[in-house]
């Protein structure tokens, strides 16, 4: 019972992560790969914990980037967890 609900929570957050990724991150980073012409790093398959800490650093501006500081600033803790989980599990 506990396992089942844990799984469905997980599934829900990955789905939410997918939606957020499609709406926000993929604009630059793509889903699996960024555009061949884009100067942005791919995110698919990156370590989820790394993605989380990077996004939080961008959000609190301890890591500087004009564009990422602005975009991460709009993400909640849940958004960050969901997006990191989604990209982390995606095969590049």
């Amino acid at each position, binding site marked *: 019972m506990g396992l089942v609900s844990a799984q469905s929570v997980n599934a829900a957050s990955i789905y939410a992560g997918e939606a957020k990724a499609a709406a926000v991150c993929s604009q630059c980073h793509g889903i699996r790969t960024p555009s061949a012409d884009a100067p942005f790093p791919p995110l698919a398959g990156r370590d989820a914990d790394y993605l989380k800490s990077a996004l939080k650093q961008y959000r609190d501006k301890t890591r500087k980037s*004009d564009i990422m500081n602005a975009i991460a600033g709009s993400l909640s803790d849940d958004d960050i967890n969901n997006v990191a989980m989604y990209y982390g599990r995606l095969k590049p």
Partner: protein
Amino acid sequence: MNTIKKHLPKSVLIGLAAIILPFGAQATSDTSKNTHQLYEDNCASCHGSDYGGFIAPGLNSDSLKGRSPTALRSLIMTGSFDTLMPPFFGRLSDDDIRGLVKHLQTTPKQTNPAWTIDDIKASIKVYVKDESTLPAKPTYAINSMDDVIGVAARGKYGRGSGSKAVFINSVTHKQIGEIPTGTAAHIIDYNPANPRWAYVKTDTAEIFKVDLYSMQAVRSVKTGFNGPGLGVSRDGKYIMAGSYVPHNAVILDADTLEPLKTFELEGIDPDGKMVSSDSGMIIGTPFADIFAIALENAGQVWVVDLKEGFPVTKIENVGRHLHDAFLSHGGSKLMVASYDDSIVTAIDLKDRKIIKKLEAGCVPHVGGGSVVEVDGRTLGFGTNFGDCDKMVVSVWDLDKMEVVKQVPVSGGTESPAAHANAPYVAVDIISKDRRARTIQLIDKKSLEVVKTLDVGGHAYFPEYSADGKFLYVSAGYSGDEVVVYDSKSLEKVASVQMESPAGIFSHGRVRYMTRGLSPDEMKGAK
């Protein structure tokens, strides 16, 4: 007006200025010229070479009046979510972006630049000199050329290495070739007389003549600056292309791409005003040796006879702001969408007269339309942007020319797909939220939505394979794949990766004329 030619002496002047004027003045002139070039190289393919808008809004001193330069700068940096507008952060320097914003907010919409028949002629590029060296058969395994499906991949930035026409075998769902197009591919049309030739038109109005057997471009021509209009005549001898910038259309030799005649698009609109007009749809028909072309702003449809001198018959008062169209009844009837009065006008191409104006939801965009034969009736399906309160797909009886039903759907729609062997008419929901991920399926018999597919990305431009067994959908921007479904079970069966795919064009279209008809009915109707 001749902006291109006018710019030439100007650049000579700037060259002189560099010698004569002190440093500061020279920098200003150079900056303005460079910023214009920056606009042409990065923005114009979508926003229009004349700054007046094309598939994206116009960017000029009028349309951007009162907009915050800071907000515009960040919009260019990040792109606009839920649209095709890509992020230019990292591609353009911050100085360039700031310069662009200033340039756009002080530059009026340009007058119609000239692109004459001589410019068109001079733009022809030949990639394969001797076409007799091309292979006599496809160089890949395929049962029938009808099984070729072409996808117009825009590329993230509407240009660059991601911009290409991608061809897929719609039986195996494997890519069989791709043609780099430099800027976003928009329309793919096929030669009805010879299955080896395809024509790909880009958002910057280049047309590539493509040899599908060897999967390479053999020639290209630039017919204008922007504009998607493209048609091929039934005998495969002529192509007609139309532009938004400038306001003209041209008939080309389908073989050599040599321009034969240009047409200035202007006329009296339904409100009695003489206007210069964008080119809307251009269509060849199996019914006759003619092209039909919609003059968007003039509200006229012109019928051009493919004979000596290419004479034109003008049909006036078709509607306010025409756009696209589809054929029915062996190609003798043309259904033309009119944005501003939300109608589809039926035109008889035999008598060259309006038959009737039919209600068509809200801002109809029929996107190639669909016609299906159900229970003895010929039903036409029309999508519409649905920017007002009506979110419906219109169904018309094309024999009686009357509205049968307005089928409620979940949002605005852009393109209906149908096939004689598939049970559903597929429409793409384009409303800019989660609905944009979806395709809705309307049962041909009950005329109700029976299923919604969550495709992901910005799902649009559904298309059936020539055998009707598979439904192809572009997962568009933020999806970057074409997704393939079984047309009956609606199970996902394959995915083909590419950058920002948009329009999907089955080679089967040359046999069934309008999607949903069967080749047999076509023969019967003739």
